[in-house]
C-alpha cells in the first residue's frame, strides 16, 4: 500500500463520522524506487488531502530507510520546483506498507494490511 493509496482510504464502520484519515501502524515497510513521473504527480497533488500525507509519513517514518528527502509541511501554492516534486513523488509512490494495520480514527477499528493489501471488509455488526 502506497502512501498515495492510503490518502484515499477511509473506514466505513458503523458510527464513524469521517473515518479519515486512517492511522498507519506499520510493521513492515519497503522502499522501491521507480522512475519519476512528473505528469502523474502533478496531476494528482491538488486532489490529495495533504495533511494526511504528512501524517502518514510521520507514522511510517521510523520504518523508512533510508530517510526520504524532506517534503514541505504545507503544499506550496503555484508551480512546484522539480526537486520538491521528486521528493513528493518518492513519498507518495515509492513507500509501501507491506504489513501492519490501518486504524479508524473514530472507532479504533483496526484493518489489517497483509502482503501490501489492506482488508477493509466490515464485519456484519459494523454495517
Amino acid at each position: 500500500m502506497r502512501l498515495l493509496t492510503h490518502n484515499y482510504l477511509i473506514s466505513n464502520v458503523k458510527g464513524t463520522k469521517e473515518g479519515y484519515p486512517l492511522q498507519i501502524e506499520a510493521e513492515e515497510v519497503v522502499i522501491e524506487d521507480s522512475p519519476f513521473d512528473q505528469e502523474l504527480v502533478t496531476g494528482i497533488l491538488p486532489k490529495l488531502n495533504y495533511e494526511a500525507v504528512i501524517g502518514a509519513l510521520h507514522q511510517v517514518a521510523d520504518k523508512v530507510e533510508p530517510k526520504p528527502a524532506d517534503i514541505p509541511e504545507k503544499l506550496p501554492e503555484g508551480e512546484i520546483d522539480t526537486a520538491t516534486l521528486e521528493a513528493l513523488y518518492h513519498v507518495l509512490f515509492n513507500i509501501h506498507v507491506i504489513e501492519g494495520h490501518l486504524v479508524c480514527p473514530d472507532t479504533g477499528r483496526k484493518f489489517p494490511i497483509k502482503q501490501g493489501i489492506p482488508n477493509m471488509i466490515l464485519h456484519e455488526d459494523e454495517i
Partner: protein
Amino acid sequence: MSGASQKQKFRSVLPHEPLPTEENGFLHLQGGFEPKKQQDKKKSKDDGADEKQNIKDYYWKETTSLEQALVNSLSTQEQHYKSLHIPFPAQAVQVLDPSPPFTKIRLQYQSPEQAHQVMIAWRKYKITPSQLFSNISLGDCDDIENNWSSSAFGSHATQATMITQIPMPQSSASAWTRSNPPKFRRLLHEHNDAKERSETRYVYITGLVDPNVIDADNDESNEKDGNGSEEESFWKQPHAVLEAIRQKFKGYDSSGDGIETFLNKKQNQLIRSLHIGMRSASDAQKIVQALQGQTVVWEYNGQRLQSDALFLDYVSVTQRSVKKSKARADGVEPERGEASRPDCTSTTASIEVPGLQVIENYLTQAQEEVLMAILTGPQAPWAPNQQNMSQTGDVKRKVQHYGYVFDYKTADVLRDRTEPGHSDCPPMPTMDGELTENGLEEDAKTGKGWEVLAGVVEKTRRCQFNANKSTGTTYPNLNQLTINYYKPGEGIGSHVDTPPAFGDGLISISLNGGIVMEFRKVDSPSTKKLVYLPPRSAVLMSGPARYEWEHMIVTRRTDCHNGQVLPRKLRVSLTLRTALTLEGAPLPLVESNKFPPVWGSQSGGDDQGDNSNAITTAALATPATERDHVHAVYDAIATQWHHTRGKRGVLWPGATQFLQRLPRGSVVADVGCGDGKYFPAVWEAGSYVIGTDISRPLLETAFGVAGEHTKPNTSEPNPNIPETRQVNEHREGLRDRPAVAVADCMHVPLRTSSVDAAICIAVMHHLSTPERRVRCIEELVRIVQPGGTINIQAWAMEQEQNSRRRFAAPDVFVPFNAQPKYLEKVEWNKNKNNTTSDSQPPESGKKASEEKPDAMEEQKSVAELYSEQYTKADYDERKGLVVFQRYCHMYRKGELEQIIEGIGGATLVESGYESGNHFVIIEVTK
C-alpha cells in the same frame, strides 16, 4: 436332437424390435419339462440318480412319443391348443435339449407374425408344461403310462422367446441386448486393461458338453468312488477346463489377446452354459454365426469331448456391472441407487391403466428452458425442513410447494396457512393478462419464467383431458403445485396420493429429463405398467389411475424405454393437484402475481420501505446467494480466472476508451477490479488506479506478475503478453505493486468525492437484489467528485445471435468449469505426484491449513475430496472438472438506466450495448 443337424442362425427377438421378415417364425420355449421330483421319490432310493436319468431319457429320447405328443397337441389338436388360448398351430416341434431345467423346445410357425401372436399368448396366459401335457395321449407308451399324469410336470410358466434367423436387427453392435446380464467370475490370468474390456463383447453358449458324455462318464466313475457327483470332479480344475475351451475357440479371436471365459457361479451348471468374452464385436458376431447349432469336439485332459448342438446368444453387460466393477477396482463401494437392469416399458405394453393419459409435448422447448432456469436458478424458493413420510428427516429430493404445503409427516395438506416457516408456503403464481399460446411463448423467449409458470398452471386448469374414454374433462380447481427436483438416480416410493387431501385429477409435467413411472394395481400388485414420461410431457392420473393404482419412480440411474437404455437426467416435475377441505371441497385458491415467490408471510411484496433511498442494513449484508455463488466461487477459482482470462487481457473497447478519455493524472477507482485487468489501460492513460474487490485471492493474482513480463533472464518484453497488459517501462513500479484493497462494493472504502472517475465492470450482475444494485451505484456516485464520470458494464439478458451464451431467465447460475490443478484447496493432491515441482510454499494461512491429508483422505475419491472442500460445487467425473455455479443477474435493456433515474446526484450521459453487455456512463452532478 433334431436341432443338432440344423444350420440355422438363431437369435432371440426382443419385444421392442421389429418383426423379422423371413418366411417362418420360431418360438423357443425354455423350462422344466421334466417329471416332478416327487415322482422320483416314489422310486427306489438305491439308484435314484440312474433312475432319474432313465426317466428323462425315456421321456424325451428313447421314445419320441412325448415329442410327438407335443407336436400333436400344438399343431393338430386344435381343441387343445385353442383351449390354452394359443391362436395358431405349430408347424413343427423340435426338442433341442431335454435336460431340465434347460429344456429347450423349438416351435416353428408359418410366419413371424404368427409366432409373435403365439408368444404373446404364452406369456399372457403363463402356460405351464402341465397345461401343455394335460390333454395328450401317449399312445403306445405303455411303460410309463401308469406313472404318468399331467400334474407330474412342472407348473411353473414356460418361458417363450421369439427367435429369428436374422442374426441382428441391424448391423450395429450397440443393438445387442439380452434380458439378463451375466453373473460370473472371470477366469483369465492376464489382466486386460479397461480399454480392451470396453471393447469386449460377451457371448452366451450352451451345449458345450453333451450331457450324455458326462453322464456316461458319471456311471463309470460311480463304480470307482461310489459317491459324489462326477460332474463336479470333471470341473475340479476349472482353469484347465476353461483353458481347453479357450484353445478350442482360439481361431475366432482376431486380436491375439485371447478369449475370456467366465465361470458361472453355480459351478456344476457350467456344463450347461458358459459366457465367453470376445475382443471385438466382429469376433463375437463371427463365432455366433459360425457355431450356431453346430457341434464341436474339444479336448480336455486327454479326453475328446463331443458337444451338443451349440446355442449361442449375445450378451450385453449392463452399465451397472461395468460401473460397479470399476468402482470396486478403485476400492470404492458402488454408488447407491444403482439398480438392476431396468425393465423395458415394452414388456408391459399390453397393460392398460384406466384414467391415465400422457400428453407429449405439453410444453414447448422454450417454455421448458425458462422454467428450468427459474426452478433450478438462484430464485427457486426451496422449502425449508420438509419431513418425509417415514418421519426420519428431510425428504431426500428437493421439494417445494405453492398454494398449500403437503406435510410428509401426516401425509396431509396443511390447510391452515398461518404457521410461520411451516405452512406459509408461496402462493400459486397467477397471470396478469389473458392466457394465449403466443403470449406464453413470447414470455418464455424473453425469460419471463415466473409468468410462464403462472401461464402453465392456468393452461392446465383449462386443459381438456381425454383419459378413460370420458372426453373433455377439466380440472379447473387446481390449487396446489408441488415441484420435485429429482437428481439422476433419485426416485419416489410407491404411493397413492392421499385421497382426502387431494381431489381427482393429478397432473404432473416433466421438465428436462424423462422418466419411467411404474404403476401397480393396489389390489393386485403383480400387475404393473411401466410408462415413459418424456420431457415436456404432462401425465394425468384420474379415476382408477389415481385411486386404484400406486405410482412410483424406481431409484436408479437408467430407464429402459422401447429397448433403449436411457440414462436419467435431472428431472424437475410440476405436479398440480386440487387440495381439499376436510369436507372434500376444493380449498380456496391462494395466488399472487408477485415474483419471485418466497416463503414466509412477507410473500406479497415490499409493503414497508417504499422509499428507495432508505436501504435497510439487511440489504447491505451479503446474502447467502452471493456468499456461496459469487464470493466463494471467485475465491476458489481466482488462479484459473486470472490465468485463462485476465492474462489474455481481453478488455471491453468501450471501457478502454472511457479510461483513455480521462485527463492524464486522474485517479480512478476500479470497484470490483478482480485481477486488475483494466489497470494497465489506466496507467497507460497516464492515470492512477485504486482497485477494490471482495475476493482477496483474485486481488493477489494482480500481484506477483513481475517475472511474467520479460523473457527469462533478459529485459526484453515477453512477446506472449498481450498488448493490453503491457506497460511502459517507467510504469513497471505501478504494475508490480498495484493499489488494491479488499472491500465490499456496498461500502467502498474511499473518501467521498475523492476520485476523478470510477469504473465498475462486470460487477453489478453479481448483485442479487434490487436494493444492492442501487446501493452499488450510490457508492460509486459518492466517491467520485462532482463533474467526474462513472462507467458501469454488466451482463445483458439480450445476447448476440452468435454468442455461446444464452440466458433463459434474468436470474441464473452460470457454471464455471474449474480445472482441479488450479484449485488451492486440493493443493496436496497436485503435489503428491509432483513433489519436485516448483510449487512455492503456501503463502496465506488458508492454504497452509489444508496441507497434508491423513491416510483416510488419501483413499477418498477425487469427487468426494472436492465436494468436501467446495460444498456448493459439483464434480464432473467425466470431464474431471469442478463445476462452480456463479449467480448472475442479467440486465434487460434499459434496466441500468432505470436504476440510475432513481439515484440523486447523477446524470446519464451515455448508454449502450457492447459484446453481450449493457453499459452506462454517468456524470456526477452532486
